Structure formats: C-alpha cells, structure tokens
C-alpha cells in the first residue's frame, strides 16, 4: 500500500514537471544583503539568486555598485540541467537552473546608496529583482581607498568624471588603459588626498610595464602608499562586458602645499604584450603605450575665520611632553621630549621652542616615524631639546601648543601639552661665564649633544701611574727563574748520566790497578814470610780482575766451569787455561810447602804481572746465558 502511494506521488511530481516544461518560463530573482547599515570600515555581502525553470537560459543583467569597491565576487550555478520529453521531432526541452552571485562590497564613502534591481530577460519577458538600500556611516577610517572596480567611463571626449567628492579619470580603450582615481575633488591646503593609478589590460602582464613618465605632482607633498615594486597584484574586473586584469601602479597621499587648481599629471607606461615565445606566433603584437588622464583638484586655503597665529597643522594631532629627569645641576643639560602623534602630514608639523625662563634652549633634534595604515598617513614626530638651566630654583616649562585644522569639521583647534616643572640645584652661572659658554658653544647642533657624554665621576682615588710590571727590574728575572731551574735540572741529570757511564767504562782498568796493588801487598806478605797470605791475596786479585773484566761474579764457578765461561766470553783458550792454572796453583801452594823460595815468588809475581797485562787487554764478548 505504501509502495503504491509512493509511485503515485512520483507520477504526480513528474506530471507537474512536464506541465512546467510545457508552460512558459518561470523566473525568480532575488537580491539580499547581510546588512543594510554599516560604516566605511565594514564590508557588506550582497547575494543575488536567479532561479529559472522552463523555456530557455535567462539573460541576467547585474546592477552597478556605484560607491562600493568589489572586494570579492563569486558566481556559482548549483543546479543547471535541461532534458526533453517525447520523440526528437516533437521533443519539448525543459530547462531549469539556479545562478547565485555573491559580492563582498566595501563602501567607498559615507552616504545612502541604492543598489538597483537585477534585470533578467527570458522567454521574451523581463523580470526585475528588488532593490537594496544601504546606509553607510562614518568609520574609524574616514579616508576610503580608491575605487578600482567602478565602471570607468567609455569616453575619450570627457574622460574626467568629477563626482560629488572624488575624481575618476579614464581614457577607455579595449586593449589597455590607465585610470586615475582621486578620493577628493576638493581639499584644503595640507589635507591628504589619496590618488591611485590603475592599469587595465586584457590579459595578464608578462612583464612589468615600463614607466616612461611619472605623474607630475608639483604643488603637492607626496607620500607613497604603495612602493613602486616589481610585484604587482592583480584582480579581475569586467568593464563594459570586457574582462580586464587590473594592476594598481601607483597609490600615494598628496598633501597640497598651496591653494588653487593643482594637477596630478599624466603618467605614461609602455606595456609589453605576450612573451618572447610569442615572437614566432602570428598573433605577436608590438608594445602598447598608454597615458593616464591628468586630474585637477581644487585646493582651498584654510579659512581665515578664527585662524590661530603661527603655522597650522592640518589633521588630527595630540602633543605630549616629558623630561628625562626632574632634577638637574645648574649648567647641566636636561632633555625635553615632545611627541606629536596623529594623522596628517607629520613632516610639516612644526613646534615652537618651549618657554622656560632662565633656561638656555638648544636647537631640537627631530625624528619622524611615518606610517600609513589603511592608506591614511599618520605617525609620530619627536622633538628633543636640550635645556641648560642657568640658575638654581624651580623652573616651570610652559605648554607646547600646536594649532591644528580639522578639514572634516572645518574648524581650528589648538592642542597643547601639560606644563612641566624642573628643579635646578647648584650655583648660578655668572654672566661672563655664560657669555663665554655661548661663544664656546657656537658649534653645530651635534656638538651640543652633551648627553652622549658623562656623567662625570665625582670621586677618584687620584692614583699615580701604576707600576708597569714589564718595567720592573725583577719581572724578567722572575720570568727566568722557572726556565733556569728546569735547565739546571736537565744539566744535573745529564752530568749524572755521564758520570755513571764514565764510571762503568773505567771499572776494568780500576780493577787491574787494584789487582796490581794487591799483588804488591801479596809480595810484601811473602817478604814477611806469610806465604799463605801471599797466595790468598794473589787469588783474590786475580778473581777481582776477572769479575771486573767480565762484569759478572765468578766466585761460584768451578775451575773447569770458569775456563769454559772465559772461552765463551771470547778469551783465547791459552789465556783462559793460564788463568785457571794460576788459580789452581794458588789454591795448591796456599796449602802446600813447595815453591816458597823468594826466587820462586819473584818469578811467580812476574808471571802474574804479565797475566794481568793480558787480562787488561782482553775485551769480553757480550753476556750470554750461563752454562
């Protein structure tokens, strides 16, 4: 049952749709805005929706948005289709579409604006949407940006279009043209006028346009709001049905310096078309040269009525002052800083010197910080005076006045700082000294900038020339002590080594000499009849000589081992045998009774001397392992 009901509903819907297709086209067009009241700082989102069903595709004509800059635009077609019923011959085409335009608009100025209805033509009939009225109030940014999206006039005869409070000058061309927009047609002397020069080209630029002549701005003080740069930002805009790419080439704040008709002159640019590769293309075209239309602004002198004395700053300003300290010694300098902040041409703001009795006021140093947020020239101008009090006491520094003129309210106002007080201590400067100081101080401004120096020191140890260590006599001696000790240690070590080496070398000779002394002592013993003592001494002397020569003990060897050892150490066999025989003889005769006559002793002694001489000449071979 439910399924049948659904089928019937669908059939009914399709029947209705077919009926629509057979009926005439039906159009619904509506324009809405997200707000109807705003300030010049705010954007409004305007939406236009066109729904068309049946017949053919509608032709939509959008209204102009005079007084608004198109910040963003978007077109969408969320639904668009067509289909036919029946055979091809009797087919009936059904069209249905929805087109939605969304514009983000920014008011160009204050006022009440009516966006005219959207016109839609379809099936030979015209349809209109509602109109929208927008009320724009004053924002925090009273100076609007230039309006690059308004439709420039398509005229060469009367290219300059002066509207209520701005100027739009265009020499329209279908290929490319320059457009100058100035936000004010009339201005006071010193009031900011913002001028923008746009380049409209059909396609995107392949290279930056070459500026042949800059606009003449004689009679204006110019502050660039966008720096002439290599990176141009582009946006698309349709002018008279032709899509253009728009580049802002110059935007500057111009402050008129005198009254009368002042002209922002023509700017000439050369535009390169296509790229190098297009040279081979048949569509290659030469460069275009375009000039902007000069724009004249009526500049009014400031009103005489209620005009204050002195120079008047045009704009909105405030003045504040401060001292870097509130107590100072007589004759010392104190810095007074006056800061002017506000909107307007700060560089023409001039402050009178502060009024302070008994204070010498030096020429001020001036620093500027100029900015241009939202294309409104503003910033800070800082005056710094050095004040030199001439006498002690409390000094009142008067207000600093700045007469201003507000071009919007068309009235004068004097802004002023708060008065300041300075306490001066110390003795007065005498007139003569004062005069001298003035003469001595007849120097450029920078030389009076005493604050870069000091403050001086009020106490000092008044120490004499501190002794230079390098000049003292002991220093280099002290420096030499450590290396000298080191050299001494090296020398002592070296001597010790040499002595030891020398001692080792002379040991054998000493041993032979000792042995011969012992032999003499042995002979003395023999002479006294001590034969045993004689041979004991002889054996001891011979052993000492051998140990000294071989540099090893020999007492532990048997006689045959000693002989083998002597031969191992390089002694000739005959000499080794002689040594062993002598030792054997000594052992034998020490305990026997033969051979003890004085002649025999003498002969033995002579033989021993000969043997010692041979041993003295003997050089043993290197030590080897003992047998």
């Amino acid at each position, binding site marked *: 049952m439910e399924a049948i009901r659904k089928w019937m509903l669908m059939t009914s819907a399709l029947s209705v749709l077919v009926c629509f297709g057979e009926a005439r086209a039906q159009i619904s067009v509506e324009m809405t805005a997200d707000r109807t009241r705003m300030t010049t700082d705010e954007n409004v989102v305007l939406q236009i929706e066109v729904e068309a069903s049946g017949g053919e595709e509608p032709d939509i004509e959008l209204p102009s948005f005079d007084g608004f800059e198109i910040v963003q635009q978007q077109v969408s077609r969320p639904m668009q289709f067509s289909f036919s019923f029946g055979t091809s011959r009797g087919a009936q085409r059904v069209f249905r579409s929805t087109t939605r335009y969304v514009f983000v608009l920014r008011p160009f100025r204050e006022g009440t604006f009516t966006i005219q209805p959207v016109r839609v033509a379809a099936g030979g009939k015209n349809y209109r949407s509602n109109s929208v009225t927008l009320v724009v109030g004053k924002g925090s940014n009273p100076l609007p940006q230039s309006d690059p999206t308004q439709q420039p006039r398509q005229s060469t005869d009367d290219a300059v279009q002066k509207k209520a409070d701005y100027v739009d000058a265009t020499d329209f061309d279908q290929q490319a043209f320059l457009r100058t927009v100035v936000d004010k047609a009339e201005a006071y002397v010193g009031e900011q006028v913002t001028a923008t020069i746009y380049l409209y080209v059909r396609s995107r630029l392949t290279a930056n346009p070459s500026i042949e002549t800059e606009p003449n701005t004689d009679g204006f003080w110019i502050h660039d709001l966008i720096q002439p740069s290599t990176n141009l930002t582009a946006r698309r805009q349709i002018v008279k049905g032709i899509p253009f790419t728009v580049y802002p080439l110059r935007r500057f704040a111009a402050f008129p310096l005198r009254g009368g008709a002042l002209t922002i002159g023509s700017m000439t640019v050369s535009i390169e078309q296509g790229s190098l590769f297009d040279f081979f293309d048949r569509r290659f075209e030469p460069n275009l040269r375009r000039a902007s239309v000069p724009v004249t602004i009526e500049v009014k002198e400031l009103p005489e009525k209620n005009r204050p004395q002195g120079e008047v700053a045009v704009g909105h300003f405030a003045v504040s002052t401060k001292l870097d300290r509130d107590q100072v010694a*007589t004759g010392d300098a104190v810095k007074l800083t006056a800061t002017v902040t506000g909107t307007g041409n700060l560089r023409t703001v001039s402050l009178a010197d502060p009024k302070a009795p008994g204070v010498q006021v030096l020429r001020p140093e001036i620093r500027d910080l100029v900015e241009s947020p939202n294309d409104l020239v503003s910033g800070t101008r800082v005056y710094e005076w050095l004040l030199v009090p001439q006498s002690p006491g409390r000094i009142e520094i008067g207000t600093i006045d700045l007469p201003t003129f507000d071009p919007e309210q068309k009235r004068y106002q004097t802004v002023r700082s708060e008065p300041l007080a300075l306490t001066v201590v110390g003795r007065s400067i005498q007139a003569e000294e004062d005069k001298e100081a003035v003469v001595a101080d007849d120097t450029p401004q920078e030389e009076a900038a005493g604050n870069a120096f000091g403050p001086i020191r009020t106490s000092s140890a*008044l120490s004499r*020339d501190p002794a230079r260590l390098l000049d003292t006599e002991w220093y280099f001696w002290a420096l030499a002590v450590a290396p000298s000790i080191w050299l001494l240690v090296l020398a002592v070590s070296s001597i010790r080594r040499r002595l030891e080496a020398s001692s080792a070398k002379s040991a054998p000779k000493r041993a032979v000499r000792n042995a011969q002394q012992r032999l003499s002592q042995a002979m003395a013993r023999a002479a006294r009849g001590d034969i045993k003592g004689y041979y004991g001494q002889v054996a001891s002397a011979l052993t000492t000589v051998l140990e000294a020569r071989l540099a090893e003990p020999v007492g532990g060897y048997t006689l045959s081992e000693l002989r083998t050892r002597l031969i191992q150490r390089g002694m000739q066999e005959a000499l080794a045998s002689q040594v062993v025989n002598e030792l054997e003889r000594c052992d034998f005769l020490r305990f026997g009774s033969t051979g003890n006559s004085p002649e025999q002793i003498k002969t033995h002694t002579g033989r021993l001397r000969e043997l010692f001489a041979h041993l003295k000449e003997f050089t043993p071979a290197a030590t080897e392992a003992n047998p």
Partner: protein
Amino acid sequence: MRTLLLAALFTLLSSPASAQSLQRIFSSANEAYFRGDFASAAKDYEKIVQAGVRDADVYFNLATAYARAGEYGKAILFYERGLKAKPGDEAAEAGLAACRNLLGKREAEKQGEAVVQTRPPLSEALVRPFSENLLAGLLLLFDFAFFALLIALRLSERESLRIGLGIAAPLIGFLLILTVGGLLVKSEALKEGRAAIVINDEAAIREGPDPRAQARGKAQQGQSARIIKGEADYVRVRLSDGSEGWMKRSDVEAI
C-alpha cells in the same frame, strides 16, 4: 716659564699635603663642569694629570669635559688613556664611540663622507679588555706552572703521574703562548713607534721637520697615529690611513 711653573706645581703636589690639594683641584674641576664651564674643568683636570696622577676616573672626567667643550681630539686622547688605565670601562668606551661618531658627522658634513670608526685588528680587539699588568702577571704564573710541570715530568718515575703531567704541560704551554702573544700585542712590542692621537684639527703633515717643508696633507683631530721618532718641535708620524710625515709636536700626543 711653563716648565718652571709645572715644576713648582709638582713640588707643591709632592708635599704631604699634595693629596688634599689634588682633591681640592678635582672638586673644583667637578664644580666647573657642573656649572657648564667645561674649559675650566678641563684645565683643572689637566693640572691633576700633570702632577703625575694617572687615574682612570680623572682621565674620564677630563675626556668628558673636552668632549662637552667640543674638543673631540683631546677627548679621544684621554678616553684612550683612561681605557689603557682601566680596560673595559664601558662609559669611556661609549664616550669614545660618541666622540668618533660626532667627529665623523662633522667630517661628513665638511667633506661629504667620513670614516666614522675604524675597526681594530682582531688581536687588538681580543686583548682590549685586559690590562698589560694583568697579562704580565698571567705570563709569570703560566711560566712558573709550565716549567714546574716540566721539572716534575723529568723527575717523576710513577707512570700515572707522568701521564697526568704529560697532559697538563701542553695545555699550560698553550696558555703561556697565548699570554705571550697577548702581551706582545698589548705592549705594542712588535709595532714601530708609540700610539698617539691627533689633537688639533687640520694639522699639517710635512715632508720634513720644518715649517717650510712642503705639506703632504692634513690630519683630522681624533685620528689615530703612531709617533715613530721625534726631532725638536716635530715628530715623524704614521697616520691610520697609512700616510707618513712630520707633524708639530703640539698637534699629536702619545696615548
């Protein structure tokens, strides 16, 4: 006559009461400075310096008084002397930089361009914060330490001790070499002549030590120079720009 006066002053100041006298002159100079009478202040500070005082504070006050009086050449000279007596004195460094900047601006206004400040070589910049005496003391210390280590290394027989000494000795030796280098730079032992400052503007540089000698050029006050030798009233100088010649003794003064 001036010499006699100075000698008399020196004698006076060498008496037991000299310290008090100097303090009085110092106070008087300070008062003159606070009155704004910078010329008188400078004159009094000069008296103290001529009495043999080489105090960094006196040099600083003297330099500041000259600077406030617009005599930047003399101000630079005494700031430099103050920095020599007390290296790293920030106020003196700032005053010196300000003087050089102001002279540079003045020169630029006159000539169209000027060298505001020449950067010293790296070696000089490195030793600038240290006094000569400090470096000499460090040299003595490292000298003792280094050779003590060498002697210990020679006499020591314990292997672990020998390793420790073998590591420490080259490190101390490196510090010793650095200190020697620093002292050589600081004492300007390797440079010819003495560092000096031109104190008078547009001081003539001549071919010879004679006022009739041909002028080679002019030196600007505050310009750095080296006095190579002296002869009567003239000294042979080499300026920071490399030019060389004879200048009047009164136009240039050693730091």
